[in-house]
């Protein structure tokens, strides 16, 4: 070889890398045409990486109402780049480019390290990047998760490269893992790396040492592990603190439910072998480019190539080398895990989820284990190429793999590797995001505002991924890329920690006192984004136009074609405030806040001691003597137990929704030998509660859920008899549940909630059962028909129970005795109503009528007010008050219109015919929107069936998406509220029918149709009488007790945010005890330190300027310091924090502290530091990491000096 040829050969690998890098850059460029960039999905919605560090680079996140950190999100390379080039599209290009280029580079360098020649190395690296699994994995473009494709080969490469140089291995492995620490953001991926590292060390040791030496393996592993641990100590230390909180995320049962989902039969192992585990199944070629590309008749032949090469290798080579075998075994184990709970031995995975600590985090088996599987397969191919290079079929193998790669490269070459997808006929999801000028204007507006506040995001998407119209029917789909790139936390229906939900902010927008709620959440601005499409539906009932009408009294901070930004004005409450009107309402949740807040004025800076949803759901509530004694008033919102409105029942009250229902795990298959014993055991468990119907009900519901899980798990394997048995048992359990509910209906205080629980659980059971059976056996199957019949029967029984709850009963738990004013929400025709105490104690019984002077605090709008029923003495304990209403008017008349002949009207209306469908109908008088009605009548069907329809007409329809050209047709102006067919059990007897319906939001009028139907040319004859339709009014009822607290002096506050984990407050003129509210979510990590002014330098007065002044200057906000590293980070380390018993939950989510003059040694002016103390752990961790880096460098330099 000539010298210049040798030079070219030496640089050949680098040339190949450069060529690939250039080609890929060129392929990526078209995505950036017309000012667009690549964004979308669950993780790739950030464009400002410096902002990420500011919002999420602390142990407490500036997200929603704040949440503890599990991972510290410093994307170093992109943050550094942003310091140099402040162009979000270039940063985005680098991010996407590195997602694809880095895995290729690592795989390529690994091939070279394993002594593969440059061209085969290129082939293998391209295989790694372009196989169907990897392209589908990478298209999620989440820089936190998808770089796993790079980390796995990179980790292995470093271990292999420096295997014999321990110091360098320690240093480079640690430094590299430190730089890519953000790739550990996803807990399962973080654990996967650690499992992979064990594999890598074992494998590298066998490869290098050519023998199995446990001592060496353990030694090397400890070296690698300690390197990772010490270099990443700065974030790992945080995990020791947050682990108990993070574990509450989801249960093992949830993981199993997720893994199984509503499944169809999936050939999981087959998909693993084909590397199509992340492709849709069954493939719908219309979904996206990949689905089409891998659905041609010949693609299975191409997809079989890697496995065929492996099979050939197994036959050709004598597998004497241990590392081949170990790699093969690893491949099999990981391949088996990547199929999750599906297919053969799926129960092994279930067993691991249920019994191995933390294994439940691997709920997305195909994605997590699949990534490792692909890497190990690539590694295997490297060795195959190495071993077979002199084989006679080597050229054929190379050719086959080249064909595979060429086929896999087609999506890249055609620019479809980040393909659009067809979500439905309307939405085409796209990753080409256009940061419109309107969006930029909003971001600038919010980012330049110096005040601290939160933003309410509207419309409220049901899914955390939103759909934003980019052009025509193309929508960006992913997390909100606009508000996520601002320094203001924002609230959405899904945001918040596991125990905090903000549904009330979306469900009660039309409530007259709604705006008062916003201050309690530190919300100052409301954003309405008109580009947001309801692809999963919106949480609120109001359309975008109606939202704009509702907020029109507010001042507009910004208005452009896409965005309206409103300022809530005087309804704002700053991050810190001292409430002057404190309400104690332990029975209430955030859902009752609109009622509670209507008794207060925002100028009084209200504070509410209420319970969070989760606590109430668990049968617990917030109760605290300190709060009770210091409250100005006790307000008890009555728990309405009439439950006639199903819709309201399902509105996610108290966190209940079908999606949250868990399915108990079943280990034994129905029909198996052991199954009868399991049933006996269940029976025995239930027998323990024979005298406790409430508990028995829960047991029945639990086992009903278990039956559904059994069907889900073994549906295909059950024979018809076993299937019927399980279905029958499910019905039996549900009937038992309803029967027990009937038993406790009269006396039980929790009846309403139990009914809600049954309703919600049944919805979930029904959905899962029908999905599974339909998925396994198809729409026409007998099993599906049986399942449908069973659910219909249960549904009817539940509805019968609902009918019995037509009387409005209110349950109260009075926390202390005293005189309470009984108040009822104002409504028409309420003047004659009476409130009666039906509590068991005879001496406490009373009946109250309305008093003359309803001189009560009302909401800001006059139509919403409370009517007083006078004051009444209540003892501490439970009360049930019943509202005796005067009978409501029947909205139906005797005059029925006739649509076809053969209708006889009169006292009894008779419909009969052989040919047509005789119908009686009438328009309902005074039909009102958003109102509950009860319809009832008696009927007989001698032949055929009675068909009932209630159809309402809307006064307005939302034409936004039709006008924008997204919808081809205008939305329907009519709304079918009710459609049901009734058949008499006994044709000669009258049967009663009754149902409750709710009118729609924009309902104008409604018509009721009753017709007679039968099969073709058969006689139909039905009769009905006594038809009534009445309006049901269920006003809120509250008990209110005024506690005359001495006029407390309110101290002045000036506060400054140092960073998201630290605030400094300057308090002046404090002479009385007070509650200090900090509107950030309650966590044990938040501590308050009170220091006397004499000993402490005031920090705020030295700083430049006040950015916000509220309540006549009583609360001031200083410009935030924005110091990531507070110079005085140590100032509280030796101080004593206020005791935990004075750290209370306020407003259902926020922190509050009870502060007394003694805390400041009776000084009137002093300083309080509010600190999230685990931030100290981060500082400590950074210290350790820095020491390790410096120590390693110093040792390295010393060694070098000594050596030279």
């Amino acid at each position, binding site marked *: 070889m000539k010298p210049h040829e040798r030079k070219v050969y030496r640089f050949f690998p680098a040339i190949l890398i450069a060529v690939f890098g250039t080609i890929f850059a060129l392929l990526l460029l078209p995505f950036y045409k017309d000012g667009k960039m690549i964004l979308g999905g669950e993780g790739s919605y950030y464009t400002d990486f410096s902002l990420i560090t500011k919002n999420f680079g602390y142990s407490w996140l500036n997200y929603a109402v704040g949440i503890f950190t599990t991972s510290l999100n410093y994307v170093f390379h992109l943050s550094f780049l942003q310091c140099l080039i402040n162009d979000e599209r270039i940063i985005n290009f680098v991010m996407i480019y590195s997602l694809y280029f880095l895995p290729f580079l690592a795989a390529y360098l690994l091939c070279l390290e394993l002594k593969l020649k440059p061209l085969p190395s290129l082939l293998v690296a391209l295989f790694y990047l372009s196989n169907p699994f990897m392209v589908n994995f990478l298209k999620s473009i989440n820089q936190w998760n998808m770089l796993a494709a790079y980390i796995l080969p990179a980790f292995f490469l470093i271990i292999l490269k420096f295997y014999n140089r321990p110091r360098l291995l320690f240093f480079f492995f640690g430094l590299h893992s430190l730089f890519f620490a953000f790739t550990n953001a996803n807990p399962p991926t973080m654990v996967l790396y650690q499992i992979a590292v064990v594999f890598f060390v074992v494998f590298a040791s066998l490869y290098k040492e050519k023998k199995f030496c446990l001592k060496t393996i353990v030694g090397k592993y400890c070296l690698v592990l300690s390197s990772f641990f010490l270099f990443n100590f700065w974030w790992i230390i945080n995990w020791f603190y947050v682990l108990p909180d993070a574990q509450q995320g989801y249960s093992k049962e949830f993981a199993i439910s997720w893994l199984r989902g509503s499944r169809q*039969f999936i050939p999981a192992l087959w998909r693993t072998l084909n590397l199509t585990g992340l492709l849709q199944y069954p493939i719908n070629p219309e979904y996206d480019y990949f689905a089409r590309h891998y659905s041609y008749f010949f693609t*299975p032949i191409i997809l079989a190539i890697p496995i065929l090469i492996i099979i050939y290798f*197994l036959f050709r080579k004598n597998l004497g080398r241990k590392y081949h*075998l170990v790699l093969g075994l690893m491949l099999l184990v990981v391949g088996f895990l990547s199929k999750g709970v599906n*297919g053969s031995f799926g129960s092994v995975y279930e067993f691991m989820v249920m019994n191995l600590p933390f294994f439940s985090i691997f709920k997305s088996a195909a994605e997590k284990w699949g990534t490792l599987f692909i890497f190990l397969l690539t590694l295997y191919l490297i060795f195959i190429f190495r071993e077979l290079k002199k084989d006679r079929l080597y050229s054929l193998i190379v050719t086959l793999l080249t064909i595979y790669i060429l086929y896999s490269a087609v999506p890249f070459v055609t620019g479809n590797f980040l393909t659009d997808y067809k979500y439905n006929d309307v939405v085409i999801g796209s990753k080409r995001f256009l940061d419109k000028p309107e969006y930029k204007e909003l971001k600038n507006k919010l980012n330049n505002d110096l005040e601290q506040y939160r933003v309410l995001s509207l419309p409220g998407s049901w899914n955390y991924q939103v759909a934003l119209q980019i052009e025509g029917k193309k929508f960006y789909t992913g997390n909100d890329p606009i508000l996520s790139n601002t320094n203001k936390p924002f609230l959405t229906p899904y945001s918040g920690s596991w125990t905090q939900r903000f549904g009330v902010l979306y469900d009660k927008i039309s409530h007259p006192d709604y705006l008062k709620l916003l201050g309690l959440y530190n919300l100052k601005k409301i954003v309405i984004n008109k580009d947001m499409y309801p692809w999963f539906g919106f949480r609120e009932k109001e359309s975008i136009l109606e939202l704009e009408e509702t907020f029109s009294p507010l001042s507009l901070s910004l208005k452009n074609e896409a965005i309206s930004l409103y300022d809530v004005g005087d309804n704002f409450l700053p991050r810190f405030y001292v409430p002057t009107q404190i309400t104690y309402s332990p029975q209430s949740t955030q859902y009752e806040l609109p009622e509670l807040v209507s008794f207060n004025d925002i100028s009084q800076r209200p504070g509410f001691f209420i319970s969070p949803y989760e606590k109430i759901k668990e049968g617990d509530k917030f109760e605290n003597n300190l709060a009770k004694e210091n409250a100005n008033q006790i307000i008890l919102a009555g728990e309405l137990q009439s439950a006639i409105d199903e819709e309201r029942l399902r509105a996610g009250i108290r966190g209940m929704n079908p999606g949250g229902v868990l399915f108990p795990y079943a280990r034994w298959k129905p029909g198996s030998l052991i199954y009868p014993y399991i049933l006996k055991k269940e029976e025995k468990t239930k027998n323990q509660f024979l005298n406790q119907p409430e508990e028995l009900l829960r047991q029945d519901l639990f086992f009903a859920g278990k039956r559904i899980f059994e069907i889900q798990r073994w549906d295909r394997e059950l024979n018809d008899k076993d299937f019927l048995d399980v279905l029958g048992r499910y019905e039996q359990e549900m009937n038992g549940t309803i029967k027990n509910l009937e038993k406790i209906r009269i006396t039980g205080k929790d009846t309403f909630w139990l009914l809600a629980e049954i309703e919600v659980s049944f919805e979930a059971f029904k959905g899962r059962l029908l999905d599974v059976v339909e998925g396994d056996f198809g729409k026409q199957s007998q099993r599906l028909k049986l399942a449908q019949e069973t659910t219909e029967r249960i549904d009817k029984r539940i509805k019968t129970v609902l009918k019995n709850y037509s009387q409005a009963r209110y349950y109260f738990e009075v926390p202390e005795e005293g005189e309470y004013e009984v108040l009822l929400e104002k409504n028409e025709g309420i003047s004659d109503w009476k409130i009666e105490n039906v509590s068991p104690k005879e001496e406490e019984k009373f009946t109250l009528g309305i008093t003359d002077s309803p001189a009560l605090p009302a909401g800001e709008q006059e139509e919403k007010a409370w009517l007083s029923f006078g004051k009444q003495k209540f003892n501490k304990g439970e009360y049930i008050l019943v509202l005796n209403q005067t009978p409501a008017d029947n909205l139906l008349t005797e005059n029925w219109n006739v649509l076809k002949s053969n209708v006889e009207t009169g006292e009894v209306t008779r419909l009969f015919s052989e040919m047509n469908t005789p119908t009686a109908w009438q328009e309902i008088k005074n039909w009102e929107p958003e109102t509950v009605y009860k319809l009832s009548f008696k009927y007989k069907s001698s032949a055929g069936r009675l068909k009932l329809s209630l159809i309402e007409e809307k006064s307005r329809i939302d034409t936004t998406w039709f006008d924008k050209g997204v919808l081809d047709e205008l939305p329907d102006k009519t709304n079918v509220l009710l459609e049901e067919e009734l058949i008499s059990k006994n044709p000669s007897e009258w049967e009663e029918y009754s149902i409750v319906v709710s009118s729609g939001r924009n309902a104008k009028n409604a018509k009721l149709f009753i017709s007679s139907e039968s099969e073709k040319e058969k006689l139909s004859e039905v009769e009905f009488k006594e038809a009534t339709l009445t309006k049901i009014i269920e006003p809120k009822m509250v008990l209110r007790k005024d506690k005359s607290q001495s006029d407390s002096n309110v101290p002045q506050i000036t506060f400054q945010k140092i960073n998201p984990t630290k605030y400094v407050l300057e308090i002046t003129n404090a002479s009385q005890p007070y509650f200090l509210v900090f509107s950030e979510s309650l966590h044990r990590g938040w501590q308050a330190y009170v220091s006397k002014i004499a000993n402490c330098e005031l920090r705020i007065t030295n700083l430049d300027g006040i950015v916000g002044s509220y309540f006549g200057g009583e609360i001031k906000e200083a410009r935030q310091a924005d110091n990531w590293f507070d110079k005085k980070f140590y100032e509280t380390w030796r101080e004593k924090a206020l005791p935990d018993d004075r750290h209370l939950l306020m407003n259902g989510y926020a922190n509050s502290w009870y502060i007394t003059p003694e805390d400041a040694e009776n000084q009137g002016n002093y300083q309080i530091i509010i600190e999230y103390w685990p931030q100290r752990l981060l500082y400590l961790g950074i210290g350790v990491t820095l020491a390790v880096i410096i120590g390693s460098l110093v040792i390295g330099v010393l060694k070098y000096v000594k050596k030279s």
Partner: protein
Amino acid sequence: MAYSNMLKRAKNLIFKYRIYILGIFCLGLIWDIFFNPQISDLAVLILGLLWILSIFNFKFEPKISFALAAASYGISFIFQFFNQEVIMEKGASWFFVFLLIGLVQSFRE
């Protein structure tokens, strides 16, 4: 002593009926892949055990296991063109099982 005698007798018995064991295994494998509509872990366990016994009885090389793995994969491959999902998955399962047994055999050798 009694235990080792029993073990010896069992071994002898298994060896004596080795051809039947192999036959049952072959028939069982065909039944499981083509005629058993359910995915049965028990069937895989029993048939896998029979194959391991046959390996000991006939001193099969790992390549035989690999050949069976290849055949299972072939069945899977062919039946995907006929949309026979259960057979596809059965073939893939047996591919994994035979590969696992073959690799362990190679490791032992």
